[in-house]
């Protein structure tokens, strides 16, 4: 991804944007509340999370077998399977399919994996018109922006901003900020596009190996439009989205929708197992699935970090992250933001480029508490921090280990270690700190900008304990 602004600049920009702060505050509070309402029983929730975690753990552990089985069953069902190691490869595969069919206009359902490979830009450059049809993505595309959240892409925009972008693009419609009216207008615009499109592209929420079935959740109906109306349907997915059995689906679907948008179930749950069969009157005539690696198989090889692949992209960790609430999605500068983003992206793109992202975390643990498949996100983020500054250089599984080690910081920690691992040295340090407590650092980074600088007390606890007569042994 092009990083024109540095992370620091993007953070500054985000923090100084009052409107953004307000938008995200209200959006995250809304989503957290909706999720809370869906899980009234703590014990039941614990049980459900364990079940989902087990299903995903098993799937990730058996990934190679399941992918082979999935491919076998999909091909049996007349769905052509393509494997792409890199994003470029995936883009080329999609392009080739479209080129072979002389497809010029494409409609697309919401898919984070296609954002990841920057499919839209690629096809655009090849002269193929590709239109986002999920309302949030459609609005974001109009404003020439990137989504700021993996489930609610336009969450950073308020009504006024949306209306303005919409009517700038479609001046033939009378200006309104009425949500219903805007929605009706979008429906009108997109309907003809669905009908006339040469191909439809979608992501995949779950791919069932047992039956060769691709599952999709949605509320709007655009996903079904994209996967049913055009003559070609191309689905793109990360390799980790496969599950073993059809019976794995109900618990995963249940916890996905409840975690993501606080819905018991989405309006539509679409389970596609084949293109149009003999005698059927609609549905795509040909179907393709592109299996994307793009760094996932490398993560798989890393035992410490393999759990990253359990993710079902619900966005719950993002909704509960206090740092994300402050920054919004764009500040991260990556396709996946929030806790899952700072865990996944440095592993995919390397620590050299993205290691700093792991500092966007207070280790509050909220993400780990809500993850429906029990990914220990705080633990994984902490591990990445360790890889970034003292990782083993021969570890080829993550690029850039040790690349964030700074001489000043490592010296500081070495000194800290000397003091704190030696009770004797510490006692001297403690004496100095308390007796000379009027000398305290004026600056502690930006600490002093928002708070008074703390001063050590005149007496340490050890002294007070002594005075009060507490034993040492």
């Amino acid at each position, binding site marked *: 991804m092009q990083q024109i602004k540095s992370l620091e600049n993007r953070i500054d920009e985000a923090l100084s944007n009052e409107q953004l702060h307000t938008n995200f505050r209200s959006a995250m509070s809304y989503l957290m509340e909706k999720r809370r309402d869906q899980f009234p029983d703590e014990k039941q929730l614990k049980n459900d999370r364990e079940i989902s975690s087990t299903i995903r753990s098993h799937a990730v552990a058996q990934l190679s077998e399941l992918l082979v089985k999935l491919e076998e069953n999909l091909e049996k069902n007349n769905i052509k399977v393509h494997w792409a190691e890199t994003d470029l490869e995936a883009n080329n595969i999609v392009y080739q399919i479209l080129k072979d069919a002389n497809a010029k206009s494409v409609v697309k359902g919401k898919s984070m994996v296609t954002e990841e490979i920057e499919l839209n830009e690629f096809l655009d450059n090849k002269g193929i018109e590709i239109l986002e049809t999920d309302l949030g993505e459609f609005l974001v595309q109009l404003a020439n922006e990137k989504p700021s959240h993996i489930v609610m892409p336009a969450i950073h925009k308020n009504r006024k901003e949306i209306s303005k972008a919409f009517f700038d693009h479609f001046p033939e419609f009378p200006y309104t900020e009425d949500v219903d009216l805007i929605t009706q207008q979008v429906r009108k615009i997109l309907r003809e596009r669905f009908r006339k499109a040469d191909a439809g592209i979608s992501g995949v929420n779950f791919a069932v190996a047992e039956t060769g079935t691709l599952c999709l959740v949605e509320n709007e109906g655009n996903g079904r439009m994209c996967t049913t109306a055009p003559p070609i349907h191309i689905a793109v997915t990360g390799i980790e989205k496969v599950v073993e059995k059809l019976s794995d689906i109900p618990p995963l679907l249940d916890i996905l929708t409840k975690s993501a948008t606080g819905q018991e179930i989405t309006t539509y749950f679409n389970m596609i197992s084949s293109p149009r069969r003999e005698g059927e009157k609609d549905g795509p005539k040909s179907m393709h699935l592109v299996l994307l690696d793009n760094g996932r198989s490398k993560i798989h090889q890393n035992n410490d970090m393999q759990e990253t692949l359990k993710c079902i992209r619900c966005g719950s960790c993002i909704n509960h992250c206090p740092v994300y609430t402050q920054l919004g999605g764009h500040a991260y500068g990556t396709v996946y933001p929030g806790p899952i983003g700072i865990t996944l992206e440095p592993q995919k793109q390397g620590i050299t480029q993205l290691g700093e992202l792991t500092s966007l975390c207070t280790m509050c643990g909220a993400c780990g508490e809500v993850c429906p498949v029990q990914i220990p996100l705080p633990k994984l983020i902490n591990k990445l921090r360790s890889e970034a500054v003292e990782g083993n250089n021969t570890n080829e599984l993550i690029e850039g280990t040790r690349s964030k080690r700074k001489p000043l910081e490592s010296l500081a920690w070495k000194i800290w270690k000397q003091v704190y691992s030696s009770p004797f040295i510490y006692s001297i340090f403690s004496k100095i700190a308390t007796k000379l407590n009027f000398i305290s650092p004026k600056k502690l980074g930006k600490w002093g*900008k928002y708070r008074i600088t703390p001063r050590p007390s005149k007496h340490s606890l*050890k002294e007070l304990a002594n005075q009060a007569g507490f034993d040492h042994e």
Partner: protein
Amino acid sequence: MGTCLVDLFYPKAGLAGMQLLKNAGVKVIYPGKQTCCAQPSFNSGYRKEALPVARSLMKCFPKDIPIVIPSGSCAGMIKYHWSELFEGESDIEKALSVAERVYELTEFLVDKLNVELTDLGEPTKIAIHTSCSCRNEMKVADRIESLVSQLSKVEVLEQERKPECCGFGGTFAIKQGDISGSMVKDKTDILKATNASCVVSQDCGCLMNIGGALEKQNSKLKTQHIAQFLWDRTNAAN
């Protein structure tokens, strides 16, 4: 165990904790050679520096007796993260045996000692800030509530978005100072809006963050560690 923060910055809170335990009939030992649980460097990725510090602390607790800590964050570090820190090390068993015996202070007071408190103070209204480590890691958010609820003249005021992180995060406050600043501003806004006279918490890290910010804002809202608060209320002596 006092914790490094308490030792130098909040010693009275540490003492109060020890006195509360003593009052409840427990013999409290304060190992003189204790320093730090090693969380600061562990969370910064410097595990190699964290190990010797943790080992030095480990030596302070050879006996099989409970280790009580007036901090959810330090208790959580030892109890749940020493296993990661000592992974592959020869003394991991020893580390785990220490981890097993760790309690956060309010957890120990409620679960093990069943303390009964009598409120001798003047009527007051407070807000409770539960640290993320107490809430999410140690799961002892309700213990502080339960202790305070025993104080008949203390009213606990409700606050918005109570579970939200205050923005301290240890070195996060230094490394991402502006984000941290924005977070503590949001938190102090909420706390000030309760019109409480004091914010009470199980963790001094949060107190340093929230209290420091309140002071910089020239707010009258005070902060206090729960041990200090309980000790003052149940002893009336100043």
